[in-house]
C-alpha cells in the first residue's frame, strides 16, 4: 500500500487541481480556458476513482491497474486538448482556428494509428497495450507541440501574461517528465525516479493557480522580457 508520502502528495495534487477550477470560476475565466479546466476536472474525478479502486482492491490488483492505465489515457487526451486550446488562443487573431482544429485532429488520429501499428505487430490481446502505447506516444507529441508553441509565442510576440504562463508551465511539466523518463531508463537501479512524478504533477496546478490569481485577463508582459528576436 502507498505510504504517507504518496498519500500526502496525491491529496495535495488533487486539491491544487480542484483549486485551478475554483480560481478559474472566481476570476470568470472558466469558459475562456475551458480545455484547461476540463483537464483539471477530469484529473480530480480520476483521482477520486483511483482512490476508490485502491481502497477496495489494492495497489497490485487488476482492477486498480486497469483503471489506472485507462484513466491515464483519457487524461492524456484531455491534456492534449488543453494544449490545443492554447494553440487556438495564440493563433486566434490570425483567424486560423479551423486549421488548428484540423491539425489537432489529424495529429491525434495519426498518433492513434501509429500506436495501433506498433501494438498490432506484437500483441494478441491488444486493447490494454494499445491504450498504454497511445498514452505514451501522446506525451511525446505534447512535448514537441509545447516547444513549437513556445517558438510561435516568441515569433508572434505574444504578450498575454496568462497565456505565456500557461504555456511555459506546460513546457516545464512535459520536459521534467521526459527528463525523469530518460534518466529512469539510463539509471534503472536508482529508486528515486518513482518518487519524482507525483511531485512533478503538482507543478502544473500550482503554476496555473498562480497565473489565474496573479494576472488578470488584460495583463501583458513586456516583449523584451521574453526574448529579443532580431527582425
Amino acid at each position, binding site marked *: 500500500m502507498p505510504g504517507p508520502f*504518496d498519500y500526502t*502528495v*496525491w*491529496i*495535495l*495534487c*488533487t486539491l491544487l*487541481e480542484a483549486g485551478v477550477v475554483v480560481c478559474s470560476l472566481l476570476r470568470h475565466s472558466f469558459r475562456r480556458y475551458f480545455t484547461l479546466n476540463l483537464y483539471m476536472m477530469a*484529473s480530480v474525478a*480520476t*483521482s477520486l476513482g*483511483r*482512490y476508490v479502486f*485502491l481502497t477496495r482492491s489494492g*495497489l*497490485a*490488483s*487488476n482492477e*486498480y*491497474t486497469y483503471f*489506472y*492505465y485507462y484513466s*491515464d489515457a483519457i*487524461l*492524456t487526451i484531455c*491534456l492534449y486538448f488543453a494544449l490545443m486550446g492554447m494553440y487556438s488562443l495564440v493563433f486566434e487573431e490570425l483567424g486560423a482556428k479551423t*486549421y488548428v482544429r*484540423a*491539425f489537432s485532429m*489529424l*495529429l491525434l488520429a*495519426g*498518433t492513434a494509428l*501509429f500506436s495501433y501499428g506498433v501494438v498490432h505487430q506484437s500483441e494478441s490481446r491488444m486493447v490494454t497495450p494499445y491504450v*498504454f502505447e497511445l498514452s*505514451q*506516444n501522446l*506525451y*511525446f*507529441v505534447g*512535448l*514537441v*507541440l509545447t516547444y*513549437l508553441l513556445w517558438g510561435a509565442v516568441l515569433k508572434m510576440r505574444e504578450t498575454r501574461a496568462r497565456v505565456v504562463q500557461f504555456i511555459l508551465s506546460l513546457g516545464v*511539466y*512535459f520536459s521534467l*517528465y*521526459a527528463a525523469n*523518463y*530518460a534518466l*529512469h*531508463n*539510463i*539509471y*534503472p537501479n536508482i529508486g528515486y*525516479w518513482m518518487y519524482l*512524478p*507525483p511531485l*512533478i*504533477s503538482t507543478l502544473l496546478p500550482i503554476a496555473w493557480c498562480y497565473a489565474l490569481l496573479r494576472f488578470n485577463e488584460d495583463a501583458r508582459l513586456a516583449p523584451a522580457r521574453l526574448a529579443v528576436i532580431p527582425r
Partner: protein
Amino acid sequence: MSRKLAVLFLAMLVLAGAMGLKTVIASHNGGAVMMANGGAPVPRK
C-alpha cells in the same frame, strides 16, 4: 488545397519528430513508463 496539405504535412512532421524523440529517449530501455497524470501511485503490476 495547398493549405490543407500543409496542415497534413505539419501534423505528420510533428508526429515523426515526437516518435523520433521517444526512440532517442527510450533507447536505453530500463523498463520505465511515463505516467504523467495526477499524483496517484503507479500500480505494482
